[in-house]
């Protein structure tokens, strides 16, 4: 089979990691990692935040020494032989390692001098790199003034300066628009064809599928090493999609997840995607599909399905959080409404003339690359920023007039959990309950509910800073929903968390929406957009699309073409760029 052919020959491997352990004080960051990295291949280092990806890359770059175990790169040790190895390794850290006050060419010159490239060769190398990264027209521009995508390319150019044999990229795709991300994949393809070993660390599981080999990390351990198809093949015939249903797929998902044998399920637009365990449950699913007038079809397994399977399956479809809620009725059709919303910082418009309305009981997603204006729009809707022009209303209240009243009606979960590190988990819950005006017996019972729902018992006295990421996010959600708000704002709620916690989050969100809560969410996970009833795509401060995911994909697809959300987004961006150039 194809997989056998891909088994690496030992002479091809340029990195050998054996029994690598790395701990910081009492934290075990890497636990017994044994792997090889091959020349001429793109190796994906995949896993949720805190899985140990960055620690492993830093060990490879010689910036951290292993607690035990060993790393050999080209038969040398990255720490003790760093002076010999340093020219063989190109490393791009998470924020690209650029000097923002220096221009593109000055950054290149600095790294060329530090990597002691001969003066005679310099101009030629710069020319090649600038051409390769398409940055030639921007040579004199300061790095701080570049877009996210261009910064990332410049970071790559600097890391490629000494023509390394091993290139380490730490989350190069984060915060970059999909078009630039696609460019980067193409550049990396060229590099691996030339024989370079490239390691691409990412928390996006869909990126793993594009890699030749994958090192899948979870909680510091290696969960899988090999080609992604090898992993997904294990799920052959276990992934299904139910489509063509009339009602909303949320109820269907809940029922599907209750079937024995179904280990995972997600919403995809108007369809439900499920993964089953090895037992034969196809007939059960078929019956379920028929009962709602839909069809069941077998689909190709995705990397994420395999990861969830590896972790022992996702959570059930019941949300304990939603069950405690009373049904919300605001008696208001347009729960969130913004008209010609504009926010300018000086001459720069962060949000430019954005209008949309959100109905009660709807999940509305705001998508777009970093800097597109999502967060600014979001903050205006939560009353955290004052619009320069236009109005924003939540639950019928104008946010620029009755901020306090409106705020009591909404729950807000910030991107970086705004919890107090110096208060314990219990004190945080107590504080947020107090802030939202809960008192006495109600306050006590709500806190107890939250502790039980999110299984926080074990952590009550510890500081939120010491919680595992998944629990931090749970605590943040608990704090935002304790006062049972009819409108919930979630800013990147599942960014970087493991897929199980992500499932759990969406189960809660689905459950809450079932009770009539309106949910606004921002995300840059394209597949997560599929959970939303409608999405607004933002690009360059403007709304470039507003519709259900199915309709957006269909409108961008040619005949007989099935697009992913990401592909549709790329086409939309290109279209918008063309229109802008024409104007």
């Amino acid at each position, binding site marked *: 089979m194809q997989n056998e052919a891909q088994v690496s020959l030992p002479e091809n491997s340029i990195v050998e990691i054996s029994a690598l352990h790395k701990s910081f004080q009492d934290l075990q960051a890497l636990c017994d990692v044994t792997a090889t990295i091959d020349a001429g291949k793109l190796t994906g280092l995949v896993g949720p935040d805190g899985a140990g990806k960055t620690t492993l890359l830093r060990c490879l770059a010689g910036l951290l020494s292993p607690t035990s175990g060993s790393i050999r790169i080209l038969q040398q040790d990255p720490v003790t032989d760093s002076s010999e190895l340093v020219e063989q390794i190109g*490393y791009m850290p998470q924020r690209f390692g650029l000097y923002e006050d220096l221009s593109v060419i000055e950054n290149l010159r600095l*790294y060329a001098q530090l990597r*002691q490239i001969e003066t005679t060769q310099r101009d030629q190398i710069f020319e090649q790199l600038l051409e390769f990264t398409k940055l030639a027209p921007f040579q004199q521009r300061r790095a701080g003034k570049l877009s996210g995508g261009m910064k990332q390319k410049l970071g790559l150019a600097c890391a490629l300066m000494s023509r390394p044999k091993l290139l380490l990229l730490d989350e190069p795709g984060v915060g970059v628009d999909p078009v630039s991300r696609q460019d980067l994949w193409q550049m990396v393809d060229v590099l691996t064809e030339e024989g370079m070993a490239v390691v691409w660390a990412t928390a996006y599981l869909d990126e793993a599928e594009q890699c030749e080999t994958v090192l899948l990390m979870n909680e510091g351990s290696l969960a899988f090493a090999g080609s992604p198809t090898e992993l997904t093949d294990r799920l052959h015939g276990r992934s299904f999609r139910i489509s063509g249903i009339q009602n909303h797929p949320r109820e269907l998902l809940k029922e599907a997840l209750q079937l024995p044998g179904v280990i995972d399920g997600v919403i995809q637009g108007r369809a439900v995607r499920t993964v089953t365990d090895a037992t034969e449950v196809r007939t059960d699913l078929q019956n379920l599909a028929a009962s709602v007038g839909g069809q069941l079809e077998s689909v190709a397994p995705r990397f994420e399905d395999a990861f969830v399977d590896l972790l022992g399956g996702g959570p059930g479809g019941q949300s304990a959080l939603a069950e405690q809620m009373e049904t919300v009725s605001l008696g208001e059709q347009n729960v969130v409404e913004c008209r010609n919303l504009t926010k300018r910082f000086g001459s720069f418009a962060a949000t430019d003339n954005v209008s949309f309305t959100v109905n009660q009981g709807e999940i509305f997603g705001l998508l777009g690359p970093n800097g597109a204006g999502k967060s600014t729009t979001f903050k205006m809707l939560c009353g955290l920023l004052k619009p320069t022009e236009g109005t924003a209303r939540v639950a019928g209240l104008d946010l620029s007039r009755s901020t306090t009243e409106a705020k009591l009606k909404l729950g807000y979960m910030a991107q970086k959990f705004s919890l107090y590190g110096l208060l314990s988990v219990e004190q945080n819950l107590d504080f947020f309950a107090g802030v939202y005006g809960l008192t006495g017996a109600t306050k006590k019972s709500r806190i107890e509910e939250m502790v039980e729902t999110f299984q926080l018992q074990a952590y009550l006295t510890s500081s939120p800073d010491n919680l595992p990421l998944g629990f931090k996010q749970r605590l943040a959600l608990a704090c935002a929903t304790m006062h049972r708000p009819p409108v919930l704002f979630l800013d990147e709620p599942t960014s970087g968390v493991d897929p199980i916690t992500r499932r759990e989050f969406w189960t809660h969100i689905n459950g809450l929406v079932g009770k009539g809560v309106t949910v606004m969410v921002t995300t840059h996970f394209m597949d997560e957009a599929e959970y939303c009833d409608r999405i607004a795509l933002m690009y360059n401060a403007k709304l470039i699309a507003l519709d259900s995911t199915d309709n957006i994909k269909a409108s961008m697809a040619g005949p007989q073409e099935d697009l992913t959300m990401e592909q549709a987004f790329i086409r939309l961006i290109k279209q918008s760029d063309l229109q802008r150039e024409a104007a």
Partner: protein
Amino acid sequence: MAANSRTASRTLALIQKESLQVVRDPSALLIAFILPVVMLFLFAYAVSLDIQRVKIGVVLESDTPKSVALASYLGGTRYFEVHPARSAEQLGARLVSGDLKGYVLIPGNLEQRVAQGNQPLVQIITDASQPNTANFVAGYAQGAVQRWFSEQPSLAGPRINIEARYWYNPSIDSRQFLIPGAIGIIMTMIGTLLTALVMAREWERGTMEALLSTPARVNEIIIGKVLPYFVLGMLASTIASLISLFVFGIPLRGSLFALLIVSAVFMLPALGQGLVISVVAKNQFIASQLALLSGFLPAFLLSGFLFEIDSMPQVIQYITNVVAAKYYISSLQTIFLVGDEWSTLLPNVLYMGLLGALFLGISRLKTRRSLEG
């Protein structure tokens, strides 16, 4: 040989990079050039330890010629603005409100006692809620009263005529020693704060990680940081000195050469301290707090700039020995007001050099070529 030239070219590249950043970063220029000017003007005009026309009351219990003469003598000095009253009670409210800092009570029997050749009694009351001012009022008032008595022929007798001469600062103008001291404070700020901040910024923005993954060595990175800020500090000290000389008219009795040497040596502990802070603080907020706490405040409080070290408790006096600004400010005051007194300057230079070596040594040992710890 090849290794040496590589080190040199890498260091040069880092120095170039840092210089470009300084020139383009408005906050660095603000700290280096605007802050010194603002601080010099503040110290020159806002902080003054001299008494100038302090409001005091004078209680005249009688209007005899001698009482009136003493009262007007008090009013005639440049230290007091005199508000006359008939009884102490009349001044009570104004003393409580802080309008008057004290009063001098000239008793009704002054004339008699002077005529009898007795030392007359004059009462001086001061508002001691501000002890410093109270001391000055008491001291100056006492001095003025005594001087007046000594000029009274009826009290004549063999007297010792004491004439005080104020060396090095004949007009006893506090600005003359405050300004050189202020230069010391400014240089502490630039050396320590700026270095700590820019190092923390490298960590914060992730550029340190990128630097460490190149062949650049720790020594090169440190020199690449220290040299540009050394030059910047020297420029700032030159500007501050020029302002002192030409705007505030502080005399420079020593040589420019000595001034530059002393400043250059002081930059070592100041920059070293900034680097030590950056070993601990990897973000700019903590770095600036630490720089203020460990650099600015000790330079302000423990250097002898404002507060006499000899009058501090013994334990604190020991602590002042590791405050590099103490040696620098003392050297500056010597060079500006006394001259090139090398017997004072050399030990100071030696101590600053030692502290500099200590701080730079610690930062070199603690900055590792890794992200560990």
